[in-house]
């Protein structure tokens, strides 16, 4: 069984290498989400109107905001995105524009970079002539935040996804371990996920090789 065990060991090494390769080539631009599943029309804005999703804690830097849009009629009206800092009197700290003419679906609006640690409102102002619906969910979807149209609560939340320049999954490994350790056993941290990864990639193959050797 020496040869089969060697083959299995080689296969396990290949698996680890393949995981590293995928981790290097697979990229993600997600910074964080508001955590609102896009299910229903959550707000509608006419020409000149503004919708704001308020009180959003920013755990990671972002420079794009993705929204789910349903324009009425043909192409959607131009939208201006404004990010306001709640901690210092709501000045606009980032802005960007979505040109008119988009179709229904997810659209990412580039904005100036917003650093982590801020508490912000994200507003979309209709700069065109047509109307557009923003997709989101009930107000309970994201408890700390809520959506307002022209200052009036909509009792809904808008689906917002915050993005940044794409990074490989491997480059995010530390962040992934930290995130995965939250809301689990109270005494573990990101280190525990590193231990688990080491056990899965080193100890499990060793044990499987041991098992294969043991059946000769």
């Amino acid at each position, binding site marked *: 069984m020496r040869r089969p065990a060697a*083959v299995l060991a080689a296969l396990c090494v290949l698996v680890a290498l393949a995981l590293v390769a995928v981790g290097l080539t697979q990229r993600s631009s997600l910074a964080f989400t508001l955590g609102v*599943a*896009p299910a229903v029309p959550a707000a509608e804005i006419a020409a000149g109107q503004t919708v704001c999703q308020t009180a959003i804690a920013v755990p990671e830097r972002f420079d794009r905001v993705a929204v789910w849009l349903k324009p009425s009629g043909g192409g959607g009206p131009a939208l201006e995105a404004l990010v306001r800092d709640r901690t210092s009197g709501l000045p606009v700290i980032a802005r960007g524009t979505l040109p008119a003419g988009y179709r229904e679906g997810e659209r990412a609006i580039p904005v100036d970079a917003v650093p982590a640690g801020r508490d912000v409102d994200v507003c979309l102002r209709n700069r065109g002539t047509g109307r557009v619906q923003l997709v989101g969910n009930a107000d309970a*979807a994201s408890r700390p935040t809520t959506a307002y149209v022209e200052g009036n609560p909509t009792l809904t939340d808008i689906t917002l996804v915050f993005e940044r320049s794409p990074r490989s999954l491997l480059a995010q490994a530390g962040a992934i371990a930290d995130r995965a*350790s939250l809301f689990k056993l109270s005494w573990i941290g990101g280190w525990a996920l590193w231990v688990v990864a080491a056990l899965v990639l080193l100890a499990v193959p060793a044990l499987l090789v041991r098992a294969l050797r043991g059946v000769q």
Partner: protein
Amino acid sequence: MSESITQTDPSPSRRRRVPGALAALLAATAILGVAWALILPGWQAPDENSHYGYVQSLVDGPGLPGEPDRPLFATEQSRAADAVNADQTAASLVTRPEWSRTAFERWREAERELPDAQRSDGGGQNAARSNPPLAYLLYAAPYAAAGGGGVFDRLVWMRIVGVVWLLVTVAATWALAGEVFGRRPLFQLAAAALPALAPMPTFISASVTPDGLLFALWTVALWLGVRMLRRGLTVRSGVAFMAVVGLACWVKATSYALVPGALLAFAIAAWRVPGGRARVALPGLAALVAVVGGWLVTARILARPASQQLTSAATASGLDVRELGSYLWQFYLPKLWFMQDFFPSVPMGLPVVDVILNGAWARFGWLEIEFPGWVYWALTVLTLAVAVAAAVAVWRARTTLDRGVLAFLALVALTLVAGLHWQEYQLKLSSGAPFMQGRYVLPLIGIAGLASAAALRLVSARLRGLTLAGMVGGLFALQAFSLALTLERFYA
């Protein structure tokens, strides 16, 4: 399979020792199970919220869930689910669980302020309420032991108990293969590697659900049934087998599908007893009646549905044989032009592949996490190849194999699949809703393990070791990539 008959049993002391290969496989299984338990965000497995709510209702009050006037879940669970963004994340690839440390610290603060009463104000009609209580009673131990910790501590410890059930499934598959193929560790490893390393049994067992215990008890029952057939019915073997079959009925109504096969195996084993059949057989039958009857009586006293799925399916009206035939045809074969479409949600492909095979191999979270399509094609081809090879192996051994064993295993598998089809057919007629899921056939994982080992027998002895290395390596690859896929979906 005749080789097993001529095997000499090892000495009793050697028999009691766990074989090194099995111990290593169990250790690997435990690591993978704990990895799943830690990686999965709270309540991101099918109905995990309902199963957790059932246990919380049992331990903290008001008792068995199902009260129509009460909330589905206790306030503590609902607030924890909000904090981790469980409901919005469920089945929605766009959303993520909460991953801000600030939000986590805020939850920890809020959790400390929650009064005890908010742990006992659930108990409503959650989706798990009609399940029998055995799995939930077992989950109550880690729940209570971790009671001083937070909600998520309790959830993770409950998941880890599920990993123990997976270890039972793996060990029972090893033992089952030992009965079928004789004590030949190579075949035992080939069989047990499937529940140990295939990702779906690990994912399901490492989440809070009665299904993990169901897999374990079904596999133990299969082992004890085959053992009884191979070694002969004794009072002990009969009682043990029937008691386990009965216990499985305390876990999920699905287990009633185990009863016809169990009765057949028992009848065959009793028939083989040379004399005094009644004396040997009656205690086993009494054990089945006592354990299953115990649940039926308990359910009646507590005004619970003892076998809701069974009774609703049995009492359903409006059987149209042609329609049922059409449904079954479309499940396994391409729909013909004149047939009513029973599976509009599976426009391409076949439900048996899309729902059963793909779902039994790898579909995680609330089933929204999937591999690219080509992975499932490869898995389908491999599965079919193993199934055909196993059938050829059985055919070749037809003159020597124990037909009682074959009849027992076949009837168990057929009854489960037939029951699932009947249930889904009724649901399709009443609401059009799909019911079938790949994980529903996982109680048969022990039989699938036997098929893998049987397929290996077709390989020449010289190449068996290498083939087994390929099988184990392939399963490990699938498992590792499943973990990575799940990490990416939730945290990247």
